[in-house]
């Protein structure tokens, strides 16, 4: 494996990283009293393994040419990525207090021009994988071995552009490209399968020419193994890790919420949410 860099607090376990990412996200959500906190809690394990096991980057130089590129096309997941970027030392922790406020570098929707470590502007869903294809082609032209990792939501599988990009990535044999799909089974109007059924997902990506793994996206050991397998896979095809996640994972009373896409929580409930997260794992 290429140098996997854990830039701050090297003795912290991945489970502890994930806990701290959840903790950061809850503190940000509390600033606004609302937000995409269920997504952040659900994807925290994926981000912990990405940022503290798989990705190569320099916390003090987010534009370092040799970095692996992490592309967040789901702008509304920004709260989750901010939480990870804070844990990675790319964003100072005290900025967490400004989340979603006027003149903050941490707007509710992730945008490249606002935030160090945010590679692309998300928000118009379904664009991320197309940009990833172009970056992979560009990096190949530059003889770079950097990875391009694109985090997609399952809702983005509804967009035709995602599948255009999927076909293209296989066509160009983009073997440095890893797509992570957060299959949280939720979209804006309700459960994903009621919006536009996309199963069987593994077979679809396979048929599109991708190396496919489908795992429990809240299982850190499974995530580590999947990232390693995606990196070491010998065939020149793009790789996708389909991550089945549980929304609001780690905060029981939020996991039970039916309206999970955009959560409003009463001011006093945020304390209970932090409480429900429990102590940092040993």
């Amino acid at each position, binding site marked *: 494996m290429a140098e996997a860099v854990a830039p701050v607090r090297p003795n912290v376990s991945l489970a502890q990283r994930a806990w701290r990412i959840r903790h950061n996200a809850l503190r940000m959500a509390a600033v606004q009293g609302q937000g995409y906190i269920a997504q952040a809690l659900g994807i925290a394990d994926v981000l912990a393994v990405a940022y503290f096991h798989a990705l190569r980057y320099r916390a003090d130089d987010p534009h370092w040419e040799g970095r692996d590129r992490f592309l967040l096309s789901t702008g509304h997941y920004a709260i989750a990525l901010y939480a990870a970027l804070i844990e990675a030392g790319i964003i100072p922790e005290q900025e967490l207090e400004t989340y*979603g406020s*006027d003149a903050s570098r941490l707007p509710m929707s992730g945008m490249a021009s606002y935030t160090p470590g945010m590679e692309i502007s998300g928000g118009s869903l379904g664009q991320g994988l197309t940009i990833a294809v172009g970056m992979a082609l560009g990096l190949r032209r530059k003889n770079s071995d950097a990875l391009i990792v694109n985090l997609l939501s399952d809702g983005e599988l509804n967009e035709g552009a995602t599948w255009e990009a999927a076909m293209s990535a296989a066509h160009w044999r983009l073997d440095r490209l890893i797509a992570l799909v957060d299959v949280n089974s939720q979209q804006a109007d309700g459960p994903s399968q009621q919006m*536009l059924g996309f199963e069987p997902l593994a077979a679809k990506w396979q048929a599109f020419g991708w190396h496919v793994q489908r795992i429990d996206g809240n299982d850190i050991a499974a995530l580590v193994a999947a990232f390693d397998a995606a990196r070491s896979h010998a065939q020149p095809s793009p790789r996708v890790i389909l991550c089945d996640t549980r929304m609001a994972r780690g905060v029981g009373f939020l996991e039970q919420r039916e309206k999970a896409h955009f959560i409003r929580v009463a001011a006093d409930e945020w304390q209970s949410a932090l409480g429900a997260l429990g102590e940092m794992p040993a």
Partner: protein
Amino acid sequence: MSTDRPRLTTSAMIASLAAEGQRIRAAPFGHALAALAARRPEIVGMTADLGKYTDLHVFAAAYPDRFYQMGMAEQLLMGAAAGMAREGFVPFATTYAVFASRRAYDFICLAIAEENLDVKVCCALPGLTSGYGPSHQATEDLAIFRGMPNLVIVDPCDALDVEQAVPAIAAHRGPVYMRLLRGQVPLVLDEYDYSFELGRAKLLRDGNEVLVISSGIMTMRALEVAEQLRADRIGVAVLHTPTIKPLDEAAILEQAAKPGRIVVVAENHTVNGGLGEAVAALLLRHRLAPPFHQVGLPDAFLAAGALPTLHDRYGISTAALATRIRNWL
């Protein structure tokens, strides 16, 4: 924790346009469509994973078997709406204004408009009505759609306008793009002698010093400014122009020809290619040259932030409009 901290301003996607204490009506589009659907069995509702966010869920609850959830696939939504229309149905297709105008443009243009099909594209978050940043701020939707032949364009002011526009656009045969105000929508126009008529501009109040020609929420702003300036004996006429295309040329020319007034066109849209430029060209074609001013959004990608902050910064709040009009007098 933040419990006792003052509530911070927010760049959330959804924000109400209603001022504190303003009268509102909830989901006027959804209720009007459900009411109309009782009389028009060929109407169907279609959305791209934004039923709840465009108030179409009200229609969906009333007529579940006439509601089509197409998933977050705006191109598919518009193509499928065209197909439905070809088979004799009248689809009301909803998404956000950015995704209809930017992502689905080609499908609306060729599959719907070129065939003059009876599809009503109704879109939330028009202009600057979201603090979420450029991905959700449809600052150029009118410019984009004004270029599309056959398409009628409607920019309602408030809940009453939305309610009355729904049956009016359904009665029109052909494609329509309507800017949607959703959720808790301000109610303003019921205090005026007004009703929505497709293709008609209406003089809501008269005045001798200023003529404001406006559409959408800027009419609400203009009415508030007119009230403020009345205290200083400055008369502000407000010509509400909810149909952007085709423009009510006769009404605009008649008002603009009255001497002694400055003309201010106010729109919740970039100054490029919207109502302001449409009116300017109209006046010039008819050799009318009153002192002319445009109020609209700058030609820029706008910031994320709280909506009131942004409306002030970009000059479309009531206060900003009043200041600018005073400076022009």
